[in-house]
């Protein structure tokens, strides 16, 4: 019966218990923690649940769900010996840069740019809030000087983009510049987006005076249907001509928006608009989330740099908020008090969470102040702004 014994040994060696590493143990715990945060604390569950579960699946020992295919060549004919794991194949949509633009397409179909069209100067607040991206980028370069940390320019750029407060942009850029950081950067970006209502208010209060916070802004003008339809085409042309590397993100965002707005003229387009917003988006979110999470294997994730990235992410969000608010103060001065600087913080993107924070802080100081629609302008401008910043980083570092 010795062969039974041998088989038993073989069988034991094929179990996960036999080969699990301490990193995998920790990662399984981390993924459970993320599921807890997503479900109990409401941390962006739409993305963090798939990310966390992908992390769990990818760290199951010996399961090989992220393994690539294995080919073998016999007599000059190459054949696939093993197809590899599901997550490897789904991950190709990240690797080839397919999922993030498709999500931008859906986001465009869901976003109303009218508050921005009605109040175009608010677009500058969406530029100012990108300060967070670049200060964090510099911060990462400075941390590189520390003996136990090492960040290349590309890695620093990927970390900086956390300050864009925009998940698909962060994933898109990181995949191009530093795919080895995809896991921690995605987790940091989505976690801090969930924490916007905690991070922003103290900074907003610290940088503004009570009088500034109480400014009531003028009602927004109505926006014509023609403006809504021409806007996405113009934005695509202008941004792409100046910065070709931002064309794909901005172009797909605006394609989605064009279809959304064109429904008013040709109702048959409603089919496409709904699919872009719902089923197509949901399918891509599931695949994107689970495979981004799956990149976070223990050896890559459990390094000092992950903690540094998490620390830098907080700086990114804080500096972005500060940049927006300070530029808001400048606009307050220049317009003779017509602009409430609180809407500046919404420039970090994180649509529409950041705009709601502006609204909430504003109402604390003046219960009759409704800043929401005014803050939506910088908020959606911030999406464009961080796509442009990503384009700059891609073209200068890529």
């Amino acid at each position, binding site marked *: 019966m010795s062969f039974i014994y041998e088989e038993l040994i073989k069988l034991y060696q094929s179990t996960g218990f036999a080969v699990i590493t301490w990193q995998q143990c920790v990662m399984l715990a981390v993924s459970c923690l993320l599921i807890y945060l997503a479900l109990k604390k409401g941390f962006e569950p739409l993305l963090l649940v798939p990310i966390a579960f992908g992390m769990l699946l990818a760290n199951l020992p010996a399961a090989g769900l992220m393994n690539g295919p294995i080919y073998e060549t016999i007599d000059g004919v190459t054949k696939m010996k093993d197809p590899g794991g599901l997550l490897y194949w789904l991950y190709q949509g990240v690797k080839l840069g397919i999922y993030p633009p498709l999500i931008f397409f859906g986001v465009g179909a869901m976003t109303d740019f009218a508050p921005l069209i009605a109040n175009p100067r608010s677009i500058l607040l969406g530029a100012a809030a990108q300060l967070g991206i670049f200060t964090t980028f510099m911060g990462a370069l400075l941390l590189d000087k520390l003996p136990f940390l090492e960040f290349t320019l590309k890695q620093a750029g990927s970390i900086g983009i956390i300050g864009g407060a925009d998940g698909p942009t962060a994933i898109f850029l990181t995949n191009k510049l530093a795919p080895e950081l995809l896991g921690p950067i995605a987790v940091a970006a989505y976690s801090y987006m969930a924490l916007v209502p905690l991070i922003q208010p103290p900074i907003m209060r610290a940088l503004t005076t009570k009088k500034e916070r109480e400014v009531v802004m003028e009602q927004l003008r109505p926006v014509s249907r023609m403006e809504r339809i021409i806007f996405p085409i113009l934005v695509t042309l202008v941004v792409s001509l100046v910065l070709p590397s931002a064309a794909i993100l901005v172009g797909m965002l605006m394609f989605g928006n064009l279809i959304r707005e064109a429904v008013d003229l040709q109702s*048959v387009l409603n089919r496409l608009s709904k699919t872009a917003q719902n089923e197509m988006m949901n399918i891509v979110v599931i695949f994107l989330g689970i495979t981004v999470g799956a990149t976070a294997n223990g050896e890559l994730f459990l390094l000092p740099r992950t903690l540094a990235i998490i620390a830098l992410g907080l700086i990114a969000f804080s500096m972005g908020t500060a940049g927006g608010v300070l530029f808001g103060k400048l606009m307050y001065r220049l317009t003779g008090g017509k602009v409430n600087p609180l809407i500046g913080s919404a420039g970090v993107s994180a649509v529409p969470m950041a705009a709601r924070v502006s609204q909430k802080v504003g109402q604390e100081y003046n219960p009759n102040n409704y800043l929401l629609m005014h803050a939506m302008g910088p908020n959606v401008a911030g999406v464009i702004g961080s796509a442009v910043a990503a384009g700059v980083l891609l073209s200068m570092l890529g």
Partner: protein
Amino acid sequence: MSPIMYGLLVTLFGLTIVFLVLTGLWGILAMMKLFFGGKKAQETQATVKSMVNTTGSEVTAAAVQSDEMDADELLAVITAAISACMGGENNLYVRKITRVGDNTPVWGQISKQEQMLNRL
């Protein structure tokens, strides 16, 4: 050039370009307003609340005559019907109107085929 120096350059250029591009968009939006902003903005949403305030029979008639009765209007009809049943006390306030699903056609009818097939 050291990484830090190049980083500063990236930051300088980056912020400049972000501001340039978005300022450019500002200018374009301002011009667009001159050309197209004059026209009265159309209301894209059905004015459900006002419909609810009319009497049930009026709303019903309006809705069933519409060839493209959509879900919002359907809810308005329902709300109006309920409110009419309850004696006309219009103390309803529709807080959230959910448009329901995709309007899959009853395929015997040619009208939907017109919308779709010839476009494929």
